[in-house]
């Protein structure tokens, strides 16, 4: 259920969120059994609190304390997308709108308009109402683009604002924002923050729960702070003024475990280097930081460097740490590179403990929070004694305590003579660097819109299937040849309306035709004979008759449009078609993902070998890793879709608006 109970006159005084003893145990069934297996413990433990209509709350706590999980529970998407067991009670008396931390997994449509309309479409609102809401929401977040703007061309900050607009179009009474700024550079973050501030100022009755490690950014917006402890309990619930005052008065309270969660309020974090126990170089190493706005090419600079280095000498943490996961436990993933290179695992143990992951060793890495996964990737990058460490945004998603641990490891690496090269927009991290290189954005090249044929997908499909059936009527070589010749002339006449096809596309079908002719001739019923050859020729021409146009028309079968047409004209069920369209948008990224998977595996020491057997084995392993990454993304996609009403009964008869 998407909203549970709409407030009416008598109930307006009731809190819109009411939790009592709310507890959530994630299911640990799929964890491998290890000797040091930790006892299952709840991720959310006995939470009791209430939030009033129009109230704005900051939800904070250490990395991994269950902040995102609580937000998902309130959005009513947790139990449907993750395995686990609830106890206690949770009542939500408002329409909720959830914005996820990483907008890369959230988008469901190929165009800006389609993305923002997705929620209202699922509510089966009328088309004029949807169009009104969409243009209003896009204006609210100040996106200066036309509705048919491609979603995959938006920058990180723009796509975060698009997700905010997609949620605002649902006209939520409770906004749920999961670290909405953490993936963004200062300029983009300022724009997203302004969009959130503007929205909340315009809608005083809209409540909000904002998850963030940094309270100061939200001090003008929120009135109250909830703090979760590392073991998932609610340890503080107080006005923001008191929270900030406490932090200012006693910055050294950071040593008290529960207050350690108070993020980045202590004047300046002081990371401490420790002894890594080995030296990579005798000479003094340095930390070099690439800085600049998102999209300027910081990652490209790191990639250039990576391409030149041998595997054993380099450790790499990519911007998406999940790509480095190798193995189904934290311990196996942390030590994979060292083991592949035949090295000992003592450094891995030390780093895991330094970065606070010791009690998660037997967990599946995919169960870690975003901040924990990034720390695991840092351990994985260092545990094989590299000489150079390359880090892309290593401090994203860290609280004050884990920030100090991450920065401490970076300093320790420098002390050990390891060259550190990083890309970051974190000012505190930049302050630690010995050398700062500013990367300035290059003028963006606008990608040309794809060339489109003018044949509707259902027409193309109809022609293909019609020719397939019609091929049976071709009885002799003469009629079959004539039919194919007519098709050829029609194709020449229609060339302009066919989607641009390269001749290359026809090579496989021509080879297949030859092979069909040979098989039908050599294995002709009645033995090899003139009649057999003639029969084989008819069959090959029949295949040519239906298959050549099918190949020519393939370009007209753009899957997303085909799915829309099937629902629109043939009344196929809407939800499978929409899910298909959402998955197909991801096709745009699959080449990039493939490259990232291959690189991550190479850098983790999974070598390809020389023989064709070992090469194809590594190919299969990479394909499987790609599948794992994609399905993990699909889990987040499901959360984003569910949070926008795709699980509602109305979604079965949803509206479909074209943009």
């Amino acid at each position, binding site marked *: 259920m998407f909203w*549970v*109970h709409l407030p009416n006159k008598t109930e307006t005084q009731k809190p819109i969120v009411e939790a009592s003893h709310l507890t959530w145990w994630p299911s640990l069934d*799929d964890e491998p059994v290890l000797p040091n297996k930790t006892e299952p413990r709840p991720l959310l433990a006995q939470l009791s609190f209430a939030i009033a209509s129009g109230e704005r709350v900051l939800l904070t706590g250490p990395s991994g304390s269950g902040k995102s999980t609580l937000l998902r529970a309130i959005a009513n998407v947790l*139990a*449907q*997308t*993750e*395995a686990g*067991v*609830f*106890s*206690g*009670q*949770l*009542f939500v008396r408002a329409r909720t709108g959830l914005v996820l931390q990483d907008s890369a997994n959230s988008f469901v449509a190929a165009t800006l308009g389609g993305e923002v309309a997705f929620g209202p479409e699922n509510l089966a609102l009328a088309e004029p109402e949807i169009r009104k809401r969409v243009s209003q929401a896009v204006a609210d977040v100040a996106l200066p683009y036309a509705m048919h703007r491609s979603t995959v061309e938006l920058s990180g900050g723009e796509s975060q604002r698009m997700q905010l607009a997609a949620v605002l179009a649902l006209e939520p009474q409770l906004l749920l924002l999961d670290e909405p700024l953490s993936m963004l550079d200062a300029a983009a973050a300022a724009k997203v923050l302004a969009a959130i501030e503007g929205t909340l100022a315009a809608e005083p009755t809209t409540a909000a729960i904002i998850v963030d490690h940094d309270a100061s950014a939200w001090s003008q917006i929120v009135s109250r702070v909830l703090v979760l402890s590392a073991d998932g309990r609610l340890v503080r619930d107080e006005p923001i003024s008191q929270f900030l005052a406490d932090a200012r008065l006693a910055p050294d309270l950071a040593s008290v475990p529960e207050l350690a969660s108070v993020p980045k309020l202590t004047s300046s974090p002081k990371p401490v280097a420790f002894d890594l126990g080995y030296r990579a170089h005798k000479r003094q190493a340095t930390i070099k930081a690439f800085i600049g706005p998102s999209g300027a090419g910081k990652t490209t600079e790191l990639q250039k460097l990576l391409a030149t280095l041998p595997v054993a000498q380099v450790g790499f943490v990519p911007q998406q740490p999940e790509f480095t996961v190798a193995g*189904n436990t934290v311990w196996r993933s942390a030590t994979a590179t060292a083991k592949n290179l035949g090295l000992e695992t003592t450094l891995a143990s030390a780093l895991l403990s330094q970065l606070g992951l010791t009690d998660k060793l037997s967990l*599946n*890495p*995919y*169960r870690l929070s975003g901040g924990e996964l990034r720390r695991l990737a840092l351990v994985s990058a260092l545990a094989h004694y590299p000489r150079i460490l390359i880090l892309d945004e290593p401090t994203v998603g860290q609280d004050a305590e884990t920030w100090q641990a991450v920065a401490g490891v970076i300093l320790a690496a420098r002390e050990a003579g390891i060259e550190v090269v990083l890309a970051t927009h974190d000012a505190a991290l930049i302050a630690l660097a010995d050398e700062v290189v500013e990367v300035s954005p290059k003028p963006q090249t606008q990608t040309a819109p794809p060339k489109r044929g003018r044949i509707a997908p259902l027409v193309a*499909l109809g022609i*293909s299937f019609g020719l397939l059936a019609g091929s049976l009527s071709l009885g002799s070589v003469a009629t079959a040849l004539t039919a194919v010749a007519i098709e050829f002339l029609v194709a020449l006449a229609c060339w302009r309306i066919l989607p641009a096809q390269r001749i290359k596309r026809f090579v496989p*079908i021509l080879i297949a035709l030859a*092979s069909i002719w040979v*098989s*039908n*001739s050599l*294995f*002709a*019923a009645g033995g090899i004979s003139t009649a057999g050859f003639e*029969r084989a020729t008819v069959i090959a021409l*029949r*295949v040519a008759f*239906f*298959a050549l146009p099918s*190949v*020519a*028309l393939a*370009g007209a*079968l753009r*899957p997303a449009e085909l799915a829309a047409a099937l629902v629109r004209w043939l009344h196929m069920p809407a939800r*499978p078609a929409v*899910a*298909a369209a959402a*998955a*197909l948008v991801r*096709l745009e990224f*699959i080449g990039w993902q493939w490259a990232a998977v291959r690189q991550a595996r190479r850098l983790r020491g999974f070598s390809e070998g020389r023989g064709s057997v070992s090469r194809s084995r590594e190919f299969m392993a990479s*394909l*499987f890793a790609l*599948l*794992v990454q*994609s*399905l993990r993304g*699909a*889990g987040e996609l*499901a959360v984003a*879709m*569910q949070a926008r009403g*795709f699980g509602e009964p109305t979604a079965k008869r949803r509206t479909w608006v074209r943009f």
Partner: protein
Amino acid sequence: MTNHQIAPQGETNLATNAKQSGWRVIDFAIAAVLAVVLGVGMWSYDTFAYAPVGVLFAAVPWLAGLQFGVWTLPAIAGALIVRRPGAALLAELIAASVEVTLGNTWGATSLYSALLQGAAVELVLLVVLYRRFNILVAALAGAAAAVAEVLIYESWAYWAGTTTEFLVSYLAACMVSGAVIAGIGGWAIVRALRAAGVLGAFAK
């Protein structure tokens, strides 16, 4: 794990462990994304392996049927993960449309093949009432997809002139491949995905 309070009248406790019976959002999302990735896998097989393997089997052309299972993998894997009627058909159709869009040998007619193969897998699962998803059912479903593809489509479209012996040998090769590559292979992939921890929201 009992509730400590009585729920206010007319309200639903969101912290419930009730199972949803129909298709969940995550079922759609996982089936569709799985199909897109496997569709790309099928396309790379078409592009890089299909022709060399064809040359390998040039002397005994019906052996080319041993490749059949590659194209039924999405139906089996989709069905074994989602375990709901329609999952095999949905995954197979999406994978085929990815293959067609990227450009394959047969163009739009691949969607016809996909329809037959997906439907055959659904039929086998219907026989076990969508209750058994073990390696045997998977292998049977893969073989059934081969029967549908060869008898309902290829026998008249491609092999109408050949001897019965050729057709039977070809069908047998396709069935073996459907059972081994799609059936057992699909079962193994799903098991490995479960071990990797990305199928937490699905039944075992």
